């Protein structure tokens, strides 16, 4: 597992952790049944508070990415990655639809919108 925390980021630390673990599960870098470090161990490694780390795990657990078995630890949940990916893609679609609605209101042409998207996409890289 690889986690990099930025203090300069606008995103809260718990969100940065959750996002990176989620991405690694979706990409298959973390595979089903893999044991994750304990909350307190990870907190120590990352030099962040226990509560923040706990919050990341709780979020991932709620979303079904990980499972905690009491006394044994936290594991990457058995999951249908196809299904998860589809779910995430749907979320992307919804956000894009929202952007399209806004663009229509401002009479932005599809080509212009596509260009904006392309710029944003490369900027983030």
């Amino acid at each position, binding site marked *: 597992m690889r986690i990099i925390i930025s203090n300069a980021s606008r995103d809260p630390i718990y969100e940065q952790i959750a996002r990176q673990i989620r991405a690694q599960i979706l990409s298959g870098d973390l595979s089903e049944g893999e044991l994750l470090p*304990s909350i307190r161990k990870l907190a120590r490694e990352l030099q962040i*508070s226990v*509560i923040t780390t706990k919050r990341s795990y709780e979020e991932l657990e709620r979303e079904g990415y990980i499972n905690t078995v009491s006394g044994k630890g936290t594991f990457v949940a058995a999951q249908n990655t196809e299904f998860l990916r589809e779910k995430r893609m749907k979320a992307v679609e919804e956000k894009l639809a929202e952007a399209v609605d806004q663009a229509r209101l401002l009479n932005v042409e599809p080509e212009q919108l596509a260009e904006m998207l392309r710029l944003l996409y490369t900027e983030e890289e």
Partner: protein
Amino acid sequence: MEHVLDIERATKRYKGFTLDQVSLQLPRGYIMGLIGPNGAGKTTLIKLILNLIHRDGGTIRVFGLDNLASEAEIKSRIGFVPDEPRFHDDATLQSVASAVAPYYTHWDSKRFATLAGEFELPLKKNFKKLSHGTKTKFALALALSHGAELVLLDEPTTGLDPVFRRRLLDKLAGLLEGERTSVLFSSHITADLERTADFVTFVKNGRVVFSNTMDQVAQSWVVVKGGRETLDADARAFLEGVRVRAHGFEGLTSQADEARRRFGNGYVIERASLDDIMVLFGKEGSNDD
């Protein structure tokens, strides 16, 4: 949740300063940062917990026990690093450690030897020959060598270089890994606490301004920045502290969402650091202060 430390309306009256009805709870296995400007009452509060000074009101329970009735038991389960560690000046560190050991049921001389090596303590030197930072390291080694379930640190990072400060934070995180030990850590170097503290208690003028999870603090407190001509009476009344400069104002509030509604275009709204909160809280914002 089990509270290792449960303080209810603790009060101490000095001439010219009162620690006024301070309440806070610290659950087992977590770190709480105690922040506040010099003279806010941080040391007084820590001394009250240890019954080093007479309490004028309220109750303090440590490990569920009354801190006066069970003073000896409680103290043997606490590790304490004072802001100015004081031991016999002409005793060597080794002899101080040997003298302290019998007071603790769970004294672990192996652990002490390991920490002394790790902290590079000159065990054969006399205490008075040590720099302030080394005195603190020595007090820390003692505090961590008897299986303490509550570690109280009063401004431990003053006099320590950044390398050792990191190591100290790692030691504390190591204690927390066991889920058994809690830490109360007073500091005005808030960068040390920003990331690692689970809870933060802010005291000012002898009163608790807030005692909350760091997450909650980070979410609710923001700094609003804008042009000074826009700082009207309404805005002043809303803000919990304000500083006016030649080119604009900075205001503090714990109502982040409301601030985003009130101050729109032309303002910058940023998450307040613990430093921002300490500096701005209660500031009246008379010009150029």
